[in-house]
């Protein structure tokens, strides 16, 4: 087939003559730069996904992601408890509990029960504030003093700050708790927010 017999090919080749080498380099560079940005983004995703560990409890219908390297415990009266074993002198702890709730149960009832329970278990337990964090979440801040049961151990008691986030979900209340030493509480709180944001039920 000759050039003259192929009008479409002719048009294409004519159009191609107006595309300079610089245009071709620009197209290739555009693809390359986009691919680079997306690759970096996917690497960021990989690093994020591997920095947290998924947790699923099908019985309680709860799932979340907790920081990798933290010790998971599901044997207590809670759905899950994770602790940062590297934290000293108090191991930063996240805890998820599911509490049965009747239609008459209010968030205040749930929080009062927690307060009664903790005040008998924790030294100098004190509620600091209760407030509605959003339409569905109620937040209670508290403090207590953590002491070692062994009186011969030379260790200062630690002031621990904690936060409960309570959500009423039909016939149950979900309580998500964070406890951390006073000096690391503020620094650790954003991570707890992410833990809470990853929670689905």
């Amino acid at each position, binding site marked *: 087939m000759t*050039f*003259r017999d192929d009008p479409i090919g*002719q*048009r294409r080749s*004519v*159009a191609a*003559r*107006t*595309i*300079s080498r*610089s*245009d071709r*380099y*620009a*197209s290739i*560079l*555009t693809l*390359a*730069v*986009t691919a680079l*940005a*997306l690759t*970096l*983004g*996917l690497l*960021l*995703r990989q690093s*994020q*996904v591997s920095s*947290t560990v998924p947790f699923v409890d099908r019985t309680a219908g709860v799932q979340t*992601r907790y920081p990798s390297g933290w010790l998971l415990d599901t044997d207590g009266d809670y759905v899950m408890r994770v602790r940062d074993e590297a934290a000293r002198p108090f191991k930063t702890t996240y805890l998820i509990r599911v509490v049965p709730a009747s239609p008459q149960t209010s968030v205040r009832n749930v929080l009062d029960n927690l307060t009664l329970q903790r005040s008998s278990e924790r030294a100098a337990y004190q509620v600091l504030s209760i*407030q*509605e*964090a*959003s*339409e569905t*979440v109620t*937040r209670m801040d508290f403090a207590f003093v953590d002491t070692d049961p062994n009186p011969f151990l030379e260790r200062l008691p630690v002031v621990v700050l904690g*936060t409960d*986030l309570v959500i009423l979900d039909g016939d149950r209340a979900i309580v998500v708790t964070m406890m951390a030493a006073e000096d690391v509480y503020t620094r650790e709180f*954003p991570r707890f*927010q*992410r*833990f*809470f*944001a*990853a929670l689905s039920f």
Partner: protein
Amino acid sequence: MLDELDPLCVVCHRPLGLAPATLGERTYCEDHIEKVAQDRSSLWRATTLQLVVLPIMLLAVLIGSQSLGLRPTGNLRVPVSMALAVLPGLSWLVTLYLQELLTGEATRFLATVVVSGALVASAVGLPFLERVADIQSWLPNGSLTVRFLGNILLVGPTHMFLVYGVVRYTVMRTNAFERRVDGIFYAVATAVGYATMLNVQLAVRSGGFDPASGMFRVIGDVVGHAGAAAVLGYFLGRHRLESLPPWTLPTGLMLAAFADGILVYSRAEINRTSLGLARDAFSPWPGLLFSFILAGISFTAIYGLLRRINALTQAQLQTAP
């Protein structure tokens, strides 16, 4: 038959004589050299009009849903949400089209780029971000830096590259793309189609949204993506019709992607702060306001830059022998 050595018009590909008009290394026929530096006033009028009409539209929906209690329920919820998702984009495009008709401009490829923008959003943009990058599972839970980088490196580049792809592979090499401003015109139209499809998908997947809160997001998305696409369009227009170094176009794309990523990040961040555990109030207004401010800055800056470069070109052409 064409002589292989004949210079061709970069727009219409017509063979030119021995001394064709040039702009850098690009050669033009007499018709098209006149058009390169012409403006498209209809684009700026339509854009300004929309930046006024969209808040009014939002207020109307707010009054309807909050004061008059017009909130669709049951089977009506999804169709009404879809209609609301389409409304801002449709309003923008109809205004653009009517302005074009009033000024007698050609709008041949307007529908093509809008539909293509919507299709790539649904077929490539959303599946990539949701299934491959899976942003919902990790991005909102990341630290401030991670959320920032995630939006700048993944979300913005995905949106803007697809807008670039649509303009690049539909209209850019045709003779409908004959002025610098055409880059902005087609990129903004594509972005409006793209953003509209994102919002329609949101309405369908979430089983419909509350009209008031949904409209904040819908209008914010359309305005924000259009503002970022204006930056991309400026570089597309210049790249197509001038001889620029090869790094100019990727730089323009990355600037647009950065603007788009910043927009998505900042809007989420403003709303996240309001919804934070330490706060007790939620207001979507700051996010929307930010979208309008970003779009306003983007369109104003691009308008100024374009006017300047067009004035320089016109002066250059007048002094040319």
